[in-house]
């Protein structure tokens, strides 16, 4: 029991609990019938081949209705009348309801009140006792929020990694204690087989020495392996520790800890995970303080979604290419963001650079830990690069003639429809891109071909533009595991002579949003913007807004007509963000949002 409860319940400026007014009225809330309401989900049935039972999906949530009995008492009924007027001033309009839990440690919760109403039944005994009880019903948005907004400032991680340990020797590698209950003592060896390492001559293979996978006997199997890698990386200028990891089953980094000479052992989160070929995924971990990194501990989680029927050999892990990377200066950047709270919410995304941003494409989606990133040209296997300083990639491909080929790891492409955009230019007025995609296993193409083509009349402009190509359903043939040899081969040509391709981008369309704005390039001015704000919808601005400008406090911000817009929903957990700023390298992106909670804020 709490000895001296300090709870508070405020509706706007009116304190419902222990409030008081000048003329002497006091307010309190009855505990009986008090409720924050419940938000009911809107469910949609999903037809399937299941004969018994039905699969349901939550489409959205309805408003909730909070209800309180507020008692206003005073030295006389005139004072009580004043109190009722003060309460009425907060009702029948937009407002906020703030709940402070009694123990002093619980986080303060805010409910956004859409509208409210009051009922005032006549009670003769209460009148004689100089008090009145009012029932107030507050219609609120389904989820509550924290009091203060959370800001995720961001840099992106450069893809240039200065390798500090190329994993050619196992000296000093040792088992580490992890948080989970099933750990398999690892054994270390160097693996130089082609296809099992990324840089140098080999990688370190971490094999679990013994144990039984979790869930043996059920329909899934999970394995955790925790190990520590001794390092000596000078991170006095900050930066990110980057390592490449590959497992045998579906894998990801469950927990990572970095120990530094200046700060001790800290848990770190991965800022980005990107597939880099041969099943390897590159993880970037922020260095906790600016000193020397001495130890990197990883706990890798692997999951097999089927039970093979007999105890399988424990899966191996390969680690390679450990080094340090700086903040990115690229025009195409990808990162993960950790969204707090327990319910989805909208937020504001601000993009800024020192010069005009150029063509901006901002894409957000859930991060499924599959190493996905939208740009395809990094997987180029066939094509003649022509140096071009205007191109994001430093060179362009002439599309007429033999097809340019990109081979993208199939395990990183979540199944569904993809919007395909391309950055192209032509001196001749029309541009066109035709893409054909097919799944390739080993070096044999299997299954059908998905193809799409698009064209655009760019007039006399000879600069790079971003254009829509169309929709591709990928992967053309589904593959089961993430760590697979299968790739999706994109063959890109053009039926329009003179088209030059800088980049091809594929964006999954489900549960995602894409905003595309032309901000102008060059020095910031009234028509060239170095800042872009994408604001999600709120009760005040139900359609959100997209603004450009140059002043960080939005003093010169103005609305702009985007070429595409989406609603950038933020889901708790990991979100993936991709940012293309064609004229500004290393643009920064910060996300401001209120953490949303079911009822009580967690922080």
């Amino acid at each position, binding site marked *: 029991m709490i000895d001296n409860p300090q709870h508070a319940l405020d509706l706007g400026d009116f304190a419902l609990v222990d409030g008081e007014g000048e003329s002497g009225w006091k307010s309190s809330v009855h505990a009986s019938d008090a409720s924050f309401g419940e938000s009911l989900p809107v469910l949609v049935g999903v037809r399937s081949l299941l004969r018994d039972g039905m699969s349901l999906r939550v489409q959205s949530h309805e408003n909730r209705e909070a209800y309180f009995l507020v008692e206003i008492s005073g030295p006389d009924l005139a004072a009580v009348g004043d109190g009722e007027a003060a309460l009425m001033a907060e009702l029948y309009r937009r407002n906020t309801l703030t709940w402070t839990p009694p123990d002093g440690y619980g986080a303060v919760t805010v409910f956004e009140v859409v509208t409210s109403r009051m009922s005032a039944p006549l009670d003769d005994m209460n009148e004689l006792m100089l008090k009145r009880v009012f029932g107030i019903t507050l219609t609120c948005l389904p989820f509550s929020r924290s009091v203060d907004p959370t800001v995720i400032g961001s840099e992106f991680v450069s893809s240039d990694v200065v390798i500090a340990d190329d994993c050619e020797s196992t000296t000093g590698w040792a088992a580490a204690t992890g948080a989970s209950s099933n750990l398999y003592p690892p054994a270390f060896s160097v693996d130089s087989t082609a296809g099992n390492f990324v840089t140098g001559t080999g990688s370190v293979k971490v094999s679990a020495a013994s144990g039984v996978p979790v869930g043996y006997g059920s329909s899934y199997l999970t394995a955790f392996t925790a190990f520590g890698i001794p390092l000596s990386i000078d991170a006095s200028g900050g930066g990110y520790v980057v390592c490449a990891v590959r497992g045998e089953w579906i894998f990801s980094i469950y927990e990572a800890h970095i120990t530094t000479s200046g700060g001790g052992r800290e848990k770190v989160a991965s800022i980005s995970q990107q597939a880099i070929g041969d099943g390897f995924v590159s993880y970037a971990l922020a260095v906790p303080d600016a000193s020397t990194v001495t130890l990197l501990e990883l706990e890798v989680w692997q999951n097999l979604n089927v039970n093979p029927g007999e105890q399988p050999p424990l899966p191996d892990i390969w680690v390679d290419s450990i080094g340090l990377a700086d903040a990115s200066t690229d025009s195409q950047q990808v990162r993960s963001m950790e969204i707090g709270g327990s319910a989805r919410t909208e937020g504001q995304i601000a993009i800024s650079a020192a010069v005009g941003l150029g063509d901006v494409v901002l894409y957000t989606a859930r991060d499924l830990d599959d190493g996905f990133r939208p740009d395809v040209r990094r997987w180029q296997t066939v094509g003649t690069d022509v140096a071009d300083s205007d191109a994001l990639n430093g060179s362009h491909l002439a599309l007429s003639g033999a097809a340019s080929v990109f081979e993208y790891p199939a395990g990183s492409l979540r199944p569904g429809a993809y919007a395909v955009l391309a950055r192209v230019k032509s001196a001749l007025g029309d541009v066109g891109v035709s893409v054909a995609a097919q799944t390739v296993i080993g070096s044999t193409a299997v299954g059908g071909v*998905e193809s799409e083509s698009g064209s655009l009349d760019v007039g006399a402009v000879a600069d790079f533009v971003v254009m829509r190509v169309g929709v591709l359903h990928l992967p053309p043939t589904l593959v089961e595991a993430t760590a697979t040899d299968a790739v999706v081969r994109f063959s890109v040509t053009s039926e329009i002579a003179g088209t030059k391709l800088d980049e091809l981008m594929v964006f999954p369309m489900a549960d995602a949003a*894409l905003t595309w704005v032309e901000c102008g390039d060059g020095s910031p001015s009234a028509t060239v913007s170095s800042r872009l704000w994408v604001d999600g919808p709120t009760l005040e601005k139900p359609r959100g807004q997209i603004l450009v400008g140059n002043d960080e406090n939005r003093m010169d911000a103005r609305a702009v007509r985007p070429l595409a817009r989406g609603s950038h929903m933020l889901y708790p957990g990991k979100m993936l963000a991709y940012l293309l700023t064609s004229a500004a390298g290393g643009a920064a992106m910060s996300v401001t949002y209120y953490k949303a909670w079911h009822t009580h804020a967690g922080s």
Partner: protein
Amino acid sequence: MADVVTTWAGREYAASDLGDVGEIKWETEWPFGCTKASWQVAMPPNSSLVNAGRVGADVKLYDGPILTWGGYLSEFEFADDVWTFHASGYYALAEHFLALDATGNPTSIPTTAVVQAIARGWNVTNLAALSASPLSATDETVEFNTVRAVLDELAATLGQRWKVDEARRLTMAADPTTPRWFLDNGDALRATADEDYLTAIYARYVAAVTDGEPTAWDVESDETPALPNLRREQPLDLTSLGLTTGAAVAPDVAARLALAGTRHGYTSGLEIPYGDLVVSGGAPVRLGQVKAGEMLRAFNVADPAGVVSLGLTQDVVIGRTSYTDGADTLAITPVDLTPRSLSTILAAPQKPPEPFVGTPAA
């Protein structure tokens, strides 16, 4: 998430700038391409009709960043604090353009009719390989025909169908023969009708002309082998084409027989939930991107007798799609829909379009 962009006098407006937008729906058909779309905007009743909502504005519907439907704003209405805008596809304008040559005389040459209609203001780009030979006996016809009548007639003689897609491109092609989408949920088109079922066509044409009047007629026929009691014959009057020969008319007759289909019509369509429609490799299809004119393969099918046969597949050319943005289901009907329900019959155009009228040779 879809967005509606209207263009008036060279300037683009997004419907979402006017107010809250909801209920964005669009339909496509094969033939014809983009046919109908509608969306609702919450604006107060006294809003002056802004340029964004003017009748005649070009309309583009985007699904995310992808252009999915194109047409022009045709009507609007106001009820319950909500404005509903309706758009029609550019194909509908073909009925309002006459088939004229550069001097304004009626023509029966398809490519001239289309090129001149575009020059006079039909807002499409022609990518179809249209024939330069006249459909009638003479280049110039006595009666006026609409561009739509010319396109319908040309398509029928080739056994093809025409459409204007979301990027305003006019194309003409035969029905697809390989499926693009695969339906995985055990559902299929099961109700069949035999009203439009035919196995033989007999076409009557003018074989000789004296002093401008037809004096002799002849018949050209085509048929496919029919099962017992399933032979259906249908006449076809080609005398409006003027003086012609059996050899010239034979490909037309064969094409019409193929187009009409020696197959039963269907009396209902399908409602397909998300996740059940996939591409051949298994990835689920985004329902708003399915367009009429593509072929769908369903597994577990009814044969003409109505018996569900396991292991067989049914290939259907989609004749019509209807989708509401954000919905979890897509409604499709096949090309051979024989309307049986009152609502479908009423929805069919009350006034059928004018057929092509040719001129006999002098």
